[in-house]
């Protein structure tokens, strides 16, 4: 099992603006980590660095098993937009990310997988023929079909109506519990973070670093409407009213590791 260690000393954008400074955390194998921060806090940049899409930074991002350093593990990325290839059918989109061996001998046929996420009979359709919610389902399935060790998610359920987003969160929890990849889930919704994650990292504004590392000890699966989720949300907002703007209350800043009370 692979541990992810992130220690970014400095990440500077092309316009000389410092995006990230002294941002450090580790994620245990199979852990669901939500990353919450104000907009412009470099959350997408952070995921791009971890995915290896962006390599220019000072610091290190490494993967370990015990003391042994590992190569980049099998990684999936669910972006803010579904980013399916519009000229390939749903089935071709899913098969595209499989290795040639997996393509030849699939463990579960693609139409069956589609049925599991409520997309029966959609294999031969093009993404343009699907609704936004259905496209996200395909993107979610694409992220899980390669059985990743690390799954990066960048506000994947943004701009969906509430019921559709709820359904997708239920689906995500189901898929995650089956294969248990390490998940880094970027969101700006604290409720969404609480309803999904084992642990929440709160980021400051630019240049961003971790201001609060909060374990969430609630049983899985949860829903955004659960009382426990609501209570934790309220108590957090009461304790740190400026938390989502990237600040712990001035006096309490740097007194980290407030434990959840719910």
């Amino acid at each position, binding site marked *: 099992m692979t541990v992810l260690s992130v220690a970014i000393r400095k990440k500077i954008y092309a316009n000389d603006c410092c995006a990230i400074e002294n941002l450090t955390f580790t994620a245990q194998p199979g852990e669901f980590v939500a990353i919450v921060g104000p907009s412009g806090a470099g959350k997408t940049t952070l995921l791009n660095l971890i995915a290896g*899409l962006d390599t220019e930074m000072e610091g290190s991002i490494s993967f370990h098993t015990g003391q042994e350093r590992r190569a980049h593990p099998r990684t999936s990325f669910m972006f803010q937009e579904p980013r399916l290839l519009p000229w390939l059918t749903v089935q071709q989109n899913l098969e595209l990310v499989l290795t040639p061996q997996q393509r030849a001998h699939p463990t579960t046929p693609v139409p069956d997988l589609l049925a599991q996420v409520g997309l029966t009979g959609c294999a031969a359709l093009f993404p343009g023929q699907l609704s936004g919610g259905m496209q996200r389902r395909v993107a979610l399935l694409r992220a899980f079909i390669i059985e990743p060790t690390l799954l990066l998610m960048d506000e994947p359920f943004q701009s969906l109506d509430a019921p559709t987003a709820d359904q997708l969160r239920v689906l995500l929890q189901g898929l995650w519990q089956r294969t248990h990849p390490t998940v880094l889930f970027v969101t700006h919704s604290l409720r969404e973070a609480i309803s999904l994650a084992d642990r929440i990292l709160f980021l400051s504004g630019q240049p961003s670093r971790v201001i609060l590392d909060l374990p969430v000890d609630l049983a899985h699966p949860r829903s955004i409407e659960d009382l426990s989720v609501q209570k934790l949300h309220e108590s957090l907002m009461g304790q740190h009213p400026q938390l989502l703007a990237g600040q712990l209350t001035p006096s309490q800043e740097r007194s980290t590791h407030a434990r959840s009370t719910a």
Partner: protein
Amino acid sequence: MQSLLKFGTLLAQSRWARILPVLLALCAWQLLALQLQSKTLPPPSAVLSILWQELYGGDLLFHLGMTLVRVAISFGAAMLLGVALGILMGHSNTWDRLLDAFLILALNIPALVTIILCYIWFGLSEAAAVIAVTVNKIPMVAISLREGARAVDKKLLQVAQVYRLSRRDTFFKVYLPQLTPYLFGSARNGLSIIWKIVLVVELLGRSNGVGFQIGSFFHFFDITGILAYTLAFSLVIFGVEALLLRPLETHLNRWRA
């Protein structure tokens, strides 16, 4: 009046919409030619009958075939090299800067200059003819594909990178489909320009092909013959468009529906 309009819409929707205007133009041409009785404007009926004669008794098929082979080879070579050059320049700023001056120059050198230079340097040979045509067309394909390569969606390439697609899959399934409109644009342009240049090449230095034939007709002021050969080639182009390009395009664009 209203029924006439209705008839017009019905007509526009039917398969006659493509054919009827052509037939009307032919009728007008025929009437005008009969009226003028001029040697320089033969009626379409005469052109058709010469076409028929040349097709069965004459060398039309041989010359048309030679021209088509030259068109096919130079078209293939120009598309391949032009697409590669265009992608290279659209993809890399360094290459774009290094080659830009040459591209502009090549684009603006008159076809006649390239043809004559090729014949002088490489002799009056088949290879020289094909090279001359290809060199003329490459910059046009490259210019168009460079725009296409610049417009490629980086976000989809990120998908390919994260999911570690093979280079082959990345190119053929993620990259190339984004260039389809540019490819079809250059293919259509290419076909029309290339056959025009091939004719000049044949006129100047070959002893067969449609260009050579039109040259000989010109010596005898045989306008009917020139028009018959033009018509034959136009029919081939219509065939390529209807049987090859349009079905292929429809197939590749079915996801847009």
